[in-house]
């Protein structure tokens, strides 16, 4: 029988209790959701930083280097770092290889760092369903900086931008030409852009293409609320209005060599600067507001779906689906028949 973690032990930073809490939450148990409810009032303090980019771009190594600097800052106190590293589950077997820890061995033995790997378990978009809940638990447990590493992302795995306060997009040399650089999607969500493996021959080209794209952008700020509109809520979201017009954040671009730790100091400075920017311009609250309302929205939708499932009888669903597959009724007509 494994010891059951509890809220008090999580708040006290007991590592075994934190690990158990994460498992309960990940498995969506009653105990896990009760724990989240209890811990919620203690959350909202941590800086959530997302690290995303294509497979093999060097996200894990970069997370390792970033965490090292926050643990041994040149000025000030060491920051407690939580890391959530997401890797994909097999769509066929549900199994997964979670290999991000391989690149994070420098952090081993440091009690101020907690690393947890998680599999997507069927969720698309670059994160797992419970990644946000993991961040809340680590936040409540007193980790001040939470680095969230997404699965190797393509062009449209942009969920991280909804969860994180600060999103770092990592590219590697040879990503494509300047047309790739102006496409919509993952590059747009970057608060900070990194070209890793900058010691490789193609690095200059990639840096130039990305730099040119940043220069093309008209100075404007997509607030977290504008972003949320990409994704319609079931209710009218309440905006957090700030009285001042916010300053504009220009995403900086950094070359790094994460295996050797080059360029990381500047990147860390930008992370700290972005946090200050968010806080000074009301953007922190905006992003929190957008995220929490989206979370409520997701819960609402899954609640109504399960309510509906309980009311409708199974043979009716089968009949409707059967007719749909036989092309007797369109998907729209099928919906009406089910309601």
């Amino acid at each position: 029988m494994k010891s059951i973690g509890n809220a008090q032990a999580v708040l006290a930073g007991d590592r075994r209790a934190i690990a158990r809490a994460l498992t309960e939450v990940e498995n969506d148990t009653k105990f896990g959701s009760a724990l989240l409810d209890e811990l919620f009032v203690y959350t909202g303090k941590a800086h959530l930083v997302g690290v995303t980019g294509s497979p093999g771009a060097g996200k894990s190594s970069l997370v390792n280097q970033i965490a090292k600097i926050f643990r041994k800052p040149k000025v000030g106190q060491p920051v407690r770092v939580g890391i959530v590293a997401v890797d994909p589950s097999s769509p066929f077997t549900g199994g997964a290889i979670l290999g991000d820890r391989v690149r994070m061995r420098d952090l081993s033995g440091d009690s101020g760092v907690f690393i947890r790997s998680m599999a997507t378990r069927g969720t698309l978009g670059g994160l797992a369903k419970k990644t946000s809940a993991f961040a809340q638990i680590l936040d409540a447990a007193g980790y001040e900086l939470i680095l969230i590493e997404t699965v190797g992302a393509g062009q449209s795995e942009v969920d991280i931008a909804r969860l994180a306060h600060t999103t770092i997009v990592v590219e590697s040399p040879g990503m494509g030409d300047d047309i790739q650089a102006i496409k919509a999607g993952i590059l747009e969500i970057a608060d900070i852009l990194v070209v890793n493996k900058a010691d490789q021959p193609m690095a200059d080209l990639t840096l130039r293409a990305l730099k040119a794209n940043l220069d093309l952008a008209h100075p404007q700020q997509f607030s977290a609320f504008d972003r949320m509109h990409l994704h319609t809520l079931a209710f009218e979201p309440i905006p957090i209005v700030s009285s001042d017009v916010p300053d504009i954040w220009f995403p900086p671009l950094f070359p790094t060599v994460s295996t050797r730790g080059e360029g990381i100091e500047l990147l860390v400075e930008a992370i700290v600067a972005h946090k200050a920017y968010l806080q000074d311009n009301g953007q922190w609250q905006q992003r929190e507001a957008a995220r929490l309302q989206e979370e409520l929205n997701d819960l609402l939708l899954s609640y109504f779906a399960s309510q509906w499932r309980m009311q409708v009888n199974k043979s009716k669903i089968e009949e409707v689906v059967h007719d749909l597959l036989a092309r007797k009724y369109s998907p729209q007509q099928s919906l009406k028949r089910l309601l």
Partner: protein
Amino acid sequence: MERKIRVLIAKPGLDGHDRGAKLIARALRDAGMEVIYTGLRQTPEMISEAALQEDVDVVGLSILSGAHMGLVPRILKSLQENGMQDVHVFVGGIIPEEDMPALLEMGVSAVYGPGTVTQQVVKDVRKIVLGYTEE
């Protein structure tokens, strides 16, 4: 939904060959488990720390260096110090048959030598964690 089995695959000690470890990791993945792979040259402390943070059900150790009689007790002790005495430990690699009883005596759940069929490992892990095997 059947609960996910989480397994840590680790290579303690100094030998640099992880083909066996990867083979097992892959077989467990294909059996629907979540496998945390930590790479080469792990100390006992690194292994037990990873097992704790990842809250795994099983720790699989791959040892080819012949140092198993020294490493395994240290890993078991470190797991115990972390409150992970309930985790099931499997050992695979180049383990002479005469050492196997002693390893099992220490509290290792199973020992696998060269020539092990990966499906046997999958079956044993399921049996030990879930308490049954599905055929």
